[in-house]
């Protein structure tokens, strides 16, 4: 087990998760097929995919909870099959459901898990206090968890996964079913952990979350569809888009934009044009000029914020077809 404090974690660079052809079948049904990739120390790695894509199965294999049917994986240098117990010592898992004991207090829940990880009493108390304070739960430590809101329970479950200071933290849908406010708090905490050098493996189907938090993402639909930083994936698989917000969209303006040689496509959304371009940085000025020349009154121009979502949908729909 890691005995390091957060500040003593090694710097980024070492590969802490390695998958090689990792596959899993359930009664002949393929859940995960041939996953091969590596995760570096200190990065937030996102696993994106629709429901049933194999995200949870992948996490369970990497946490040595279930065995792969084929292929292999190592976490912090430990084989997930041959050194399962060792793997479970160095990882922390936040499952999809927090699974806390509602009848026990927050402190009792954490103390129980700390004991299972074999933390000595001093470190147990120190870590519980430190993490509870970090998430503003210290004052509620003696309250039964059943009285906590869903967001507080999720934060507590993250603390539980962190107590033994794992080298890799697996978070399975950490903000699912949380209110926007609670989800924001959890995301901020994840970023704080990243700043402390923690390696985080994040399963999500929230693309905004993936784009905001992850250094790299893998898009999964039973098999790996794409892998790279959100920016790389957008560049590789998505078309850059520019949103032009106008005072009024007219048919003439739409036709004028369609007529521009460098425009790949135009969509109208209310008083906004979403224009697919090859290279927005060089083509945006000409686009705006053309609109103004036809009498268009431009309010403002922004890059389309949904690029990763489009990339994701394109890849996932392509794999389903």
């Amino acid at each position, binding site marked *: 087990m890691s005995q390091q404090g957060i500040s003593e974690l090694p710097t980024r660079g070492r590969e802490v998760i390695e998958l090689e052809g990792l596959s899993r079948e359930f009664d002949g049904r393929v859940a995960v097929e041939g996953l091969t990739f590596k995760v570096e120390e200190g990065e937030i790695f996102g696993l994106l995919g629709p429901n049933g894509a194999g995200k949870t199965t992948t996490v369970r294999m990497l946490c040595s909870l279930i065995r792969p049917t084929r292929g292999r994986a190592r976490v912090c240098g430990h084989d997930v099959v041959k050194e399962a117990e060792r793997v*479970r010592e160095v990882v922390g898992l936040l499952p999809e459901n927090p*699974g*806390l*004991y509602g009848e026990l207090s927050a402190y009792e829940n954490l103390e129980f898990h700390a004991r299972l990880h074999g933390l000595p009493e001093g470190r147990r108390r120190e870590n519980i206090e430190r993490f509870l304070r970090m998430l503003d739960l210290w004052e509620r430590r003696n309250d039964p968890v059943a009285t906590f809101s869903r967001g507080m329970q999720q934060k507590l479950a993250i603390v539980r996964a962190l107590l033994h200071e794992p080298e890799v933290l697996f978070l399975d849908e950490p903000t699912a079913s949380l209110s926007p406010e609670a989800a924001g708090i959890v995301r901020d905490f994840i970023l704080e952990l990243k700043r402390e050098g923690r390696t985080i493996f994040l399963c999500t189907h929230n693309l905004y979350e993936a784009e905001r938090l992850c250094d790299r993402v893998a898009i999964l639909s039973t098999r790996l569809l794409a892998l790279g930083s959100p920016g790389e994936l957008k560049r590789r698989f998505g078309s850059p888009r520019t949103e032009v917000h106008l005072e009024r969209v007219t048919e003439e303006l739409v036709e004028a934009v369609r007529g521009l040689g460098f425009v790949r496509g135009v969509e109208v959304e209310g008083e906004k044009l979403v224009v697919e371009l090859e290279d927005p940085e060089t083509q945006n000025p000409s686009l705006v000029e053309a609109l103004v020349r036809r009498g268009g009154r431009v309010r403002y121009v922004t890059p389309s914020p949904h690029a990763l979502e489009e990339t994701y949908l394109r890849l996932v729909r392509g794999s389903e077809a």
Partner: protein
Amino acid sequence: MRPDRIWAVARKDMSSARRHRYVLYGLVAIPLLFSLFIPLVSLYPVVTGEEPSENELPPFAQPGLSPRQAVVAGTIHLSLLMFLVLPAVIPSTIASYTFVGEKVNRQLEPLLATPLTDLELLLGKILGALVPSLLVTALSFAGFVITVDLLTHPLFGHPFLPDLLSLLVVGVYSPLVCLLSVSLCVLISSRVSDVRAAMQLGALSVLPALALYLLFAGGIVGMEGRTLLAFGLVLGLASAGLFSLARATFRREEILIRWR
């Protein structure tokens, strides 16, 4: 095997169980029932009533005693078999909450993600149901002994309990029935997703006690050494067999994938 971690699981389960109202009521009510109510109801009328005739003696009456002594001794020994019901019912109540309850509330996955081995986890959970059950059984037995001895001292002139049979029932049979009950509950947990249904099915572990009670009460077998040894063996084998089955069922992968 790390005893401190096994004990941590057991302690948590005991702590959780006593915060469930129904479990707590059971743990308080059962000792009162067994230590006061049963001996008073079953013995008081016989001790204070008229001397029974030889013809009225039940089939399990011991020879060499006066008719009243024989009826009282037989009634005490039959009542002792209730101490096989106790360790069957209490662990199934606790284990239903800690196994099925945890399964339904999806509390098992975080537990399975710890470095505990499957066996350590299973032993911890078994211990968590076993310890309170045996404590309550012992406490009830102590109360039973005091009540019985107070009631029967004028009749026998000496404390009747504890005798060899009572020590055998409480010291050997009860833990075995307990183990059988918890193991059965693990098996039930893998198929059932309702705490009450699990409790009802878990009550099946009273069958050995019930069978022995009927055999004794009907005079089909006597309370002699050979019969008791045979019963102990059957109970031991059944407990060991069910524990092996429970161990085979209680594997991480099985729990996560197959337990519904």
